[in-house]
């Protein structure tokens, strides 16, 4: 079978299931007894197993299968979730994640999973500290399909079923089935055996579990406890007539046998209970583990999210790009039609074209909106991150997420994850104090990290705010001086906020972790660079002893920007509004020349003025006008005036790259396609302001 065409779908779905399981695990840590969460996880694991097996990713399938077994025990009340089990399951999710990543990277998803599989199997066998099998009083599951405790033993529930059956006058048998050594299709034979069982009565317990038997995961035979109203001989005959199956050993079980078994079961439980009592700490630790776990992610429906049907479809981002491109073609035709209509002066044509113009601008909006994705898809990784961080650092941290439904362009979403991880780690690692320190400082034991996203104007803001120890201004300053980022003189005149921003300075912490100071600044320059490359910016506010807030400001989308279109000679250029201060008209006589540089007075300060026609070598530009149109642009605090021939107007433009052939062109950051189909270059004023 050609599977490659399904690979994309597999990857998407596998990621979704992994994310869902991660989320659910975190929720489960909060309320370990909520079986409905386990049900959802079980379904995810089951689906993932099936998908992986179909795609031929054996290790993925094996691991998910073992995971499913453990979850199955939990949902059938045969196993209680405890901290060690959580840890193993989280490890398991990580391993699955790694394998899926490998598959995404073009690998085969192979990995050595034996260790985790072994732990999972040990858990399934009940071999886990303080994980006593709990009596399952109500569980409706006839639970033929669970790998119970020791071989040959019935658990409490099964025992009571068996006892009731005996009391009702039915026969209870222990049947040992062995397949002929020559048997080829073991699973098929086993299936036939089970068909007979179904016809005759009910299987109370099977060893190994039915699922395993179906998958041929048994050696030569298996054992079932069976309730039937038919006589023993009839059963023996029916089973014996299946070819390749040895004559079954059918042993009748009496009420006395059951009593004995029950005593054994109780003894076992007492041992477990005693063990738990002797070692109360694991239970305590479990509660502690629950505390540092992330808080509920805002708006996430509790529990049964897995079953909800999403009325969405997946679309390849490239297809959306193509749609955009085709659409801009259409816009060009529209412009032509409009000019034709005005030439022909046909009212019918004009009306049609106008209608088409309205429809197409609506369409354009929709096409652009299609690329918007809620930040949730990035944020949902973070509860797990904070949980792990809290565990490693032995801290208590609650993550509070708000505004996860805020939408951002897909291109931004893909890039923003890493910087945010960095900032969150920073808050957890260096911001939030250890519980004892917090108590000593009069704060609650558990630290809180707020992760917020919201829209404002044409930007999305993401804030990461902790109530930790804050930034020690003095120490940051000393470090910055020591590392040559600033001089001691400079430091004197700097405000606190400016000093805090030094954390983002390159070279502030090139060495290994600075742990003697508040430690902030580890690689934060990377965060800054990344965010700026996305057209955003990051700022930090901090109050010593009270906490720190990082604010990341991002453009809504990377593909559309507001720009001022200008004309120089016969050429049109776009200047991003984000770097513009204002436009103005100045008389040529106001230009002063100082040291060969042309300057003008602008609102009380002197700023350089640049003729774009000269900078860009525009042929045929008219430079004789007495009144000059200027665009005032800004880079940081510095201003500059650019002389243009004409201001065409403000417009939303779709950003396009110049292609990799022209990757670095002076003062040009990209291009856009104008309504008439022509290409206009987008100027990068930063490059002009050196």
């Amino acid at each position, binding site marked *: 079978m050609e599977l490659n065409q399904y690979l994309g779908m597999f990857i998407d779905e596998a990621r979704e299931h992994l994310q869902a399981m991660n989320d659910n695990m975190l929720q489960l840590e909060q309320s370990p007894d909520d079986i409905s969460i386990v049900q959802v996880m079980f379904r995810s694991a089951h689906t993932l197993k099936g998908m992986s097996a179909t795609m031929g990713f054996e290790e993925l399938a094996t691991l998910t299968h073992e995971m499913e077994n453990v979850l199955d025990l939990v949902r059938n009340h045969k196993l209680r979730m405890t901290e060690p089990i959580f840890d193993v399951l989280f490890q398991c999710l990580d391993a699955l994640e790694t394998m899926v990543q490998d598959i995404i990277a073009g690998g085969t998803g192979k990995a050595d999973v034996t260790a985790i599989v072994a732990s999972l199997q040990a858990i399934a066998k009940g071999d886990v500290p303080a994980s006593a099998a709990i009596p399952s009083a109500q569980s409706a599951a006839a639970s033929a399909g669970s790998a119970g405790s020791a071989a040959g033993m019935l658990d409490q529930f099964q025992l009571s079923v068996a006892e009731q059956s005996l009391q009702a006058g039915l026969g209870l048998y222990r049947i040992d089935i062995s397949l002929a050594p020559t048997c080829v299709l073991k699973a098929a034979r086993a299936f036939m055996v089970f068909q007979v069982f179904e016809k005759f009565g009910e299987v109370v317990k099977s060893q190994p579990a039915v699922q395993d038997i179906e998958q041929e995961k048994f050696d030569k035979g298996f054992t079932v406890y069976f309730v039937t109203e038919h006589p023993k001989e009839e059963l023996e005959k029916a089973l014996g007539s299946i070819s390749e199956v040895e004559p079954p050993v059918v042993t009748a079980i009496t009420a006395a046998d059951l009593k004995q078994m029950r005593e054994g079961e109780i003894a076992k439980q007492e041992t477990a209970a005693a063990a738990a009592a002797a070692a109360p700490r694991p239970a305590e630790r479990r509660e502690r583990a629950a505390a540092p776990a992330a808080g509920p992610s805002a708006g996430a429906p509790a529990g049964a999210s897995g079953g909800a049907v999403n009325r969405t479809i997946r679309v390849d981002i490239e297809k959306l790009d193509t749609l*955009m*491109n*085709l*659409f*801009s*073609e259409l816009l*060009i035709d529209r412009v032509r039609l409009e000019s034709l209509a005005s030439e022909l002066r046909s009212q019918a044509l004009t009306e049609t074209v106008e209608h088409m113009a309205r429809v197409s601008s609506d369409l354009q909006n929709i096409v652009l909106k299609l690329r918007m994705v809620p930040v949730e898809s990035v944020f949902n990784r973070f509860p797990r991150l904070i949980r792990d961080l809290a565990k490693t650092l032995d801290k208590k941290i609650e993550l509070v997420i708000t505004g996860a439904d805020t939408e951002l362009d897909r291109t931004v979403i893909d890039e923003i994850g890493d910087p945010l991880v960095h900032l969150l780690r920073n808050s957890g690692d260096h911001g939030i104090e250890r519980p004892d320190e917090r108590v000593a400082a009069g704060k609650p034991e558990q630290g809180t990290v707020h992760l917020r996203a919201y829209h404002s104007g044409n930007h999305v803001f993401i804030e990461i705010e902790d109530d930790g120890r804050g930034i020690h201004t003095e120490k940051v300053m000393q470090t910055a001086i020591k590392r040559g980022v600033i001089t001691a003189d400079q430091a004197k005149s700097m405000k606190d906020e400016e000093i805090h921003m030094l954390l983002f300075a390159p070279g502030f912490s090139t060495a290994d972790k600075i742990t003697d100071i508040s430690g902030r600044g580890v690689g934060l320059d990377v965060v800054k660079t990344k965010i700026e490359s996305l057209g955003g910016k990051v700022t930090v506010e901090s109050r010593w002893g009270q906490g720190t807030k990082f604010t990341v400001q991002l453009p809504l989308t990377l593909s559309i920007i507001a720009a001022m279109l200008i004309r120089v000679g016969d*050429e049109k250029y776009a200047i991003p509004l984000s770097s513009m201060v204002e436009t103005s008209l100045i008389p040529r006589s106001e230009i002063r020349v100082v040291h060969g540089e042309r300057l003008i007075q602008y609102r009380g300060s002197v700023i350089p003025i640049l003729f774009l026609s000269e*900078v*860009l*070598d*525009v042929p045929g530009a008219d430079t004789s006008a007495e009144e000059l149109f200027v665009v005032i642009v800004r880079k940081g605090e510095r201003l500059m005036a650019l002389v243009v021939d004409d201001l065409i107007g403000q417009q939303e433009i779709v950003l*396009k*790259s*110049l*292609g*990799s*052939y*022209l*990757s*670095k*062109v*002076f*003062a*040009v950051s990209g*291009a856009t*396609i104008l309504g008439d*189909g*022509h*290409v*206009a*270059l987008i100027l990068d004023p930063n490059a002009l302001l050196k």
Partner: protein
Amino acid sequence: MAEELKVIVFALGHEEYGVEVEKVKTIERMSPMTRVPKTPAFVKGVINNRGVVLPVIDLRGRFGLPEAEYTDNTRIIIVAVGDLEVGMIVDSASDVIDVNSDQIELPPEIVGGIRAKYLRGIAKIGERLLVLLNLEEVLNKSEIIQLEQMEV
């Protein structure tokens, strides 16, 4: 049996050139071009090719041949090599022909002023001489950067 190669044939001056058909995306007529400042002279600018902004180079200029007026026959051959997609202005594009690999000879040092490294070989097809281009070298980016530095 010798390997068959499908080649798009185009003209520059009096010579006929060829590029493998797999590397050619489309052949377009001249369209309005936007000049890109501070780029080498042979970079004629960028065009809008179905919503994608593409750089266009003048192949004559690229090879140091004298530039010619654009006519009705002038074409832009849009080629893709790796992640590079570039339009090349040629005098005219005529047809697609099959070339047998045993018809290809190694290029002589100089063909009409074009350095040998831009060429894959010369194909003799009957009376016709076809110069096969080595597009990877023609579109070599590091060379562009060198040229830019020379001019700036």
